[in-house]
């Protein structure tokens, strides 16, 4: 359910990004997200709500591509990295240490946007500028 609110937040960020290109409206092909495995986001749910939310908007047809970032912990006992799992109560298999440092898995990041900008109208010589240069 909260994916709906996540999508709203994502759309707000995308609208702000679009403002940078105003007055042109970029045509977006893909939005790339990085979503950590240790977050409350279900990637499939997010893709679904995105698809519904962008209908009829300037982002219609844009695909949401989600890269899942695995949960990786660092054992502070031996400094080795490991994959914490709920089955092992998130402890490190090497030293039986609790999950202290999280190296990756908490990401909720808009990584990049693939887009194109409409062709600018054919430029006409700027007369005022030419006149200024001639003077």
């Amino acid at each position, binding site marked *: *359910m*909260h994916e709906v*609110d*996540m999508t709203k*937040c*994502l759309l*707000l*960020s995308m609208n*702000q*990004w679009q403002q940078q290109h105003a007055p042109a409206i*970029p045509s977006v*092909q893909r939005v790339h*997200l990085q*979503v950590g495995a*240790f*977050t*409350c*986001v279900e990637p499939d749910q997010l893709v679904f709500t995105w698809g519904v939310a962008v209908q009829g908007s300037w982002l219609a047809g844009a695909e949401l591509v989600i890269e899942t970032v695995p949960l990786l912990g660092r054992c502070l006992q031996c400094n080795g990295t490991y994959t914490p799992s*709920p089955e092992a*109560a*998130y*402890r490190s298999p090497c030293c039986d240490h*609790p*999950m*202290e440092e*999280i190296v990756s898995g908490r990401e*909720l*990041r*808009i*990584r*990049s*946007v*693939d*887009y*194109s*900008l*409409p*062709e600018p109208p054919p430029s006409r010589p700027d007369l005022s500028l030419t006149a200024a240069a001639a003077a």
Partner: protein
Amino acid sequence: MHMPLEDTLGLNLLAANQHQAQHNREHFDAWQLLCLNVMSSPGAGKTSLLERSLAALAPEFAMAVLEGDMTTLLDAERLEAVGVPVVPITTGRACHLDAAMVRGGLRILGQRLDPASLDLLWVENVGNLVCPAEFEIGEHRKVALLSVTEGDDKPLKYPVMFREADCVVITKVDLLPYLPVQVERIEAHIHQVNPRCAVFQVSASTGAGLEAWHGWLRQQRSAVSSAAAALAVESLEAAAPEPVLVP
């Protein structure tokens, strides 16, 4: 023909919420109050705990409650009876509070009192152990409540919440003799995902453990107010004109 462009944003997905949360936080710091985001599943005993803690702390602290849990709206009267103003937050059908909703609650609160007169602001989040963990509201501390009736594997089933919490209050410990639950296991599981988390075992009905929990709150309150005071001094110094060197 035009080339596809790629913008590398590296922007947090929840940037819009974080921006508003930061704004709330600036207000809290300017008002020099401690804001707590209180989260739990429904029925973890939030209202009962709050009732006890508000009554116990009212002589030392000026407090208010922003109430985001619609199911406990009826309990607002119980809290107001202690003399602490309670302002409901309109959440629609949201399963968590976000920073903009809290801002709306602050506006209503501001019509009733001057927030700068407060020492402690309690924000009671929607009863849910999942997404409230991801939506910052500008709080100084996240407090998660966990009732012993919920079993001892909750911290492993909802690890993000228990990882993000600064403090976990284990409630209803008076029921332990009647439950097949070991409170040591609950505590151990919390520390598996969050080794430095403060954990308190309390009972709102017997009052057990409340003093230790209130002691933690006092510590956080003074940590936040001295940080705010240091910030204020810093900005004063920054604003002060360069000292004139007298030869």
